């Protein structure tokens, strides 16, 4: 079930090439992550729409292979 942080980051960058992605392995078990994603693609979008962009980048792994991903998003300042 575990997924390496590099793979999460790569999937997000494929969909959002400008994204600044910071991933923290919360429990050190390769299964509980926090991701902070900063991308200009989020500009003008609601929080829900911003998160949906990231979830789509992860292509259905969210809620399955990737159980625990805390997500925060922001527009570059």
């Amino acid at each position, binding site marked *: 079930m575990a997924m390496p942080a590099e793979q999460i980051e790569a999937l997000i960058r494929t969909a959002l090439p400008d994204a600044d992605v910071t991933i923290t392995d919360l429990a050190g078990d390769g299964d509980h992550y926090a991701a902070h994603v900063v991308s200009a693609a989020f500009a003008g979008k609601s*929080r829900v729409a911003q*998160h*949906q962009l990231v979830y789509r980048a992860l292509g259905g792994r*969210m*809620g399955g292979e990737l159980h625990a991903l805390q997500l925060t998003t922001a527009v570059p300042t």
Partner: protein
Amino acid sequence: MSELPQSSADARISEIVNGNDIVLFMKGTPLFPQCGFSSRAIAILDHLGVEYASVDVLQDMEIRQGIKSYSDWPTIPQLYIGGEFVGGSDIMMEMFEAGELQQMVQGLKQAG
């Protein structure tokens, strides 16, 4: 041409989100949440001091699957306020910290 019938899951979910001012789709119950994210969502709602309904998706496979496509959101918990999808536990936390969730709930009280 008649409209295609909604799936029964969609119809049931629509009834739930429109029939309750605040409703949380979660794993477990407010007293016994079965997942850390659901537990966090409950803690936020309890802190707001509002009444809310909850649906335990672990007891209902149709809703557990159906809510994901209904909201276009892959994970549980999911919060609905006034029939609108608000977000999962991360968004709830961000909105709570920004005071936005409090405002939303306040708006609901005034409208009601």
